[in-house]
């Protein structure tokens, strides 16, 4: 079983430091991750195979003649049976592939995810170009919404049931209830347009200018954070209330600790597990799911590229990018499990 089990057997002296057996755990997870990713590619291939739209015509252009369309179809191997195409795709990942640029043969080294129908770029190159953007977006917003969400969750748990808590909840929920393109645009209009506090976001690579990188991403981060924070606030609040009912919290109250340290140190710590799990999921899905944020802020990331690839039926790009986003989801969950075991030593990695 490749998951976590929290053993709740008291009265037991267990000399099992949480991270023992990490190697075996990672190996097992790796195998299942590969299987998961393989399944994802099959699903995406199958789904996009049925999606209507004459791929050759779309790729060739509106006014291509039937003869040209046939040429393009042959060029892209669209006439091959779907299993053949899938097999070629798999082979490309393991052994690389070769493509004709017309004047020469281009080798796409393993792991080769194929060539974009639309731009003839190697999908792996495309992904490497876009990954830093999406990664920056995901990572930065993760930090902000964790701080914001867990913070307000803590505050909400502290003021539970009071008017101030309802207000706080209302504020954070306003974020959840508003689509990102509304929050983002309003923020941009006000912060960049009217107040001119920040530049209109424009991606600057971290390696180029870290300071500009951060300033330009601040708004996208904040917009995402405002939306996600409520979820974390809710989960944190619920988990804290759950922990507050536990006996060890009573101990610290009985030892004169203030409500603040009871909440901030003891109850919050117990709330970490669900927050970590949630953050892992969100962080992973951010790689494929920040479509709207990327579109709105003009960040050339994976999500935006994915949507446009879907629109022009660029199957290699779609499959490649879904595979990569899937990879990050799986990775994030794996990291979460390990973090979880570090945070709570009672957890045994199985």
């Amino acid at each position, binding site marked *: 079983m490749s998951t976590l089990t929290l053993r709740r057997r008291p009265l037991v002296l267990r000399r099992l430091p949480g991270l023992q057996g990490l190697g075996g755990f990672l190996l097992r997870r790796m195998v299942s991750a590969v299987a998961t990713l393989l399944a994802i590619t099959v699903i995406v291939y199958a789904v996009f195979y049925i999606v209507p739209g004459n791929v050759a015509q779309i790729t060739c252009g509106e006014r291509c003649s039937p003869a040209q369309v046939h040429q393009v179809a042959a060029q892209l191997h669209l006439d091959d049976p779907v299993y053949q195409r899938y097999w070629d795709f798999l082979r490309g990942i393991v052994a690389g592939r070769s493509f004709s640029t017309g004047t020469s043969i281009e080798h796409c080294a393993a792991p080769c995810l194929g060539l974009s129908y639309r731009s003839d770029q190697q999908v792996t190159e495309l992904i490497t170009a876009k990954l830093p953007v999406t990664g920056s977006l995901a990572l930065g917003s993760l930090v902000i919404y964790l701080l914001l969400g867990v913070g307000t969750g803590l505050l909400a748990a502290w003021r539970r049931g009071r008017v101030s808590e309802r207000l706080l909840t209302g504020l954070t929920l306003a974020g959840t209830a508003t689509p990102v393109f509304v929050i983002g645009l309003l923020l941009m209009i006000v912060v960049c347009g009217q107040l001119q506090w920040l530049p209109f976001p424009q991606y600057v690579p971290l390696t180029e200018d870290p300071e500009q990188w951060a300033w330009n991403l601040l708004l996208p981060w904040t917009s995402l954070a405002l939306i996600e924070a409520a979820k974390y606030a809710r989960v944190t609040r619920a988990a804290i209330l759950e922990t507050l009912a536990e006996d060890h919290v009573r101990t610290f109250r009985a*030892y004169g600790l203030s409500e603040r340290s009871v909440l901030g140190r003891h109850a919050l710590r117990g709330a970490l597990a669900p927050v970590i799990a949630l953050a892992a999921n969100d962080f992973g899905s951010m790689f494929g799911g920040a479509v709207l944020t990327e579109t709105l802020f003009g960040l050339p990331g994976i999500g935006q590229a994915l949507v446009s690839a879907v629109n022009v039926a660029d199957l290699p790009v779609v499959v490649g990018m879904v595979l990569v986003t899937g990879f990050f989801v799986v990775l994030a969950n794996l990291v979460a499990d390990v973090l979880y075991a570090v945070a709570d030593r009672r957890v045994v990695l199985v």
Partner: protein
Amino acid sequence: MSLVEVHGLTVEYDTTRAVDDLSFSLNKGAALGLVGESGSGKSTVAAALLGLHRGTGARVTGSLLVAGTDVQRATDEELRGLRGARAAMVFQDPLSSLDPYYAVGNQIAEVYRRHTRAGRRAARERALQVLDQVGIPDAARRARMRPHEFSGGMRQRALIAMAMACEPELLIADEPTTALDVTVQAQILDLLHSLREDTGMGLLLVTHDVGVAAESVDDVLVMRSGRAVERGPINTVLRTPAESYTRELLGAVPRVDAPTAPRAAITGDALLTATGLRRDFGRGRRSVTAVDGVSLTLHRGETLGIVGESGSGKTTLGRMLVGLLGPTAGTLAHGAERPRVQMVFQDPVASLNPRRSIGESIADPLRAQGEREGARLRARVGDLLQRVGLDPAHYDRYPHEFSGGQRQRVGIARALAPSPDLIVCDEPVSSLDVTTQAQVIALLAEIQQDLGLALVFIAHDLAVVRQVSDRVAVMKEGSVVEYGTVEEVYGAPRDPYTQRLLAAVPTLDPVVATERRTARRALTPTW
């Protein structure tokens, strides 16, 4: 001057009056035992002393003066100043009373810093000091461990260390040894005693076990239904009890040395035969062998007692016998018919669904047997409740509304409900006061007579096991080190471990207790 001055204390929960017009006082450096049956309000009194009811919806009236603080009138801040600093509490359940996420040493240091403004380093040193003081070996290393890496006894010690950290004037210990086996229990009680001698703090020991009180306190207050029944020096109360209730209480205390009624010879046919039962947990290097090569036979109508220290595999064996755990190796054979089995679980908190009323929980196995008629169910459950000494009107109450002992009785009622062939009782009476304990034991015996059921009786209280069992198995580190009839095991124990266990049993005679303590102190502790 008195350390604790309680006057007319009344505590009311939603529907119950847990403490009713109670008054007592405790002088500096003195030790008071609070004894009484389960549910008599002992824990409630303890909690009230620290003002722990504040804000919970419980109504507290009367005056409480603790270490110079008027608990009823104090501000939150004043109350926090009292808690832990001048009056510290050791809770009834040591196992869940520490934060699982932080190192034990840090938790103690945190409490110390809260009250002393000591620096980080000083606090850590103090933590090591108190851990050492309560006899945790290799304190420097242990302080960095998390609670789950401690054994039950060590955790109890850690809690006492936390209480000691700020050198309180008053220590409130609520059933500090209930969950521990006798050897560890003896160690803890000895520890409390020596701490009191060394630091001169006052002790309020809450217990249902008169034996425990006898070993540790000067004065005793007997409670019943929230009221004081009798109060006096421990010697007087134990030797010449004034109240009939006290007499009853004392009379019910089982003694290891008391003569037992000869039990009828075992005639029933074999219900279960276990051969070479073994159970491992975890795999690879991390695996733990909880039970190792246990073979035994259970007959209809007999009672098998299982004793042994914490972690010796008693519960694991019990769970295998009822089929809740599959054995890693060995077989479990049964006669022609598969016996119907039930279990009374060790942890009364976890064994009841907190979202269902206790009546529903007890009715559950009956429902499973096909009984659907509401009125009949209610009647049957009411009957069972009464038999375990609970009020049938409590059908609709939820587990959290009961005291520890009451919950355990609910568990027994549920196990009895479907009239099984075998009940494995895992520490069924460990948190019951002696009178209730006697009732429950009598009840089990009666039902065993009526139905001819077999019992497996897991307990750390050697006297109780002796009282109820036909045969006894002594477990240590997963194996049965001694197995035989009660007479054989208690009369002529062969294994040194069994001998040690018997020596640690508390006695009702304070004088004897002191003698034994000195004797024990001569030996190096073996935790």
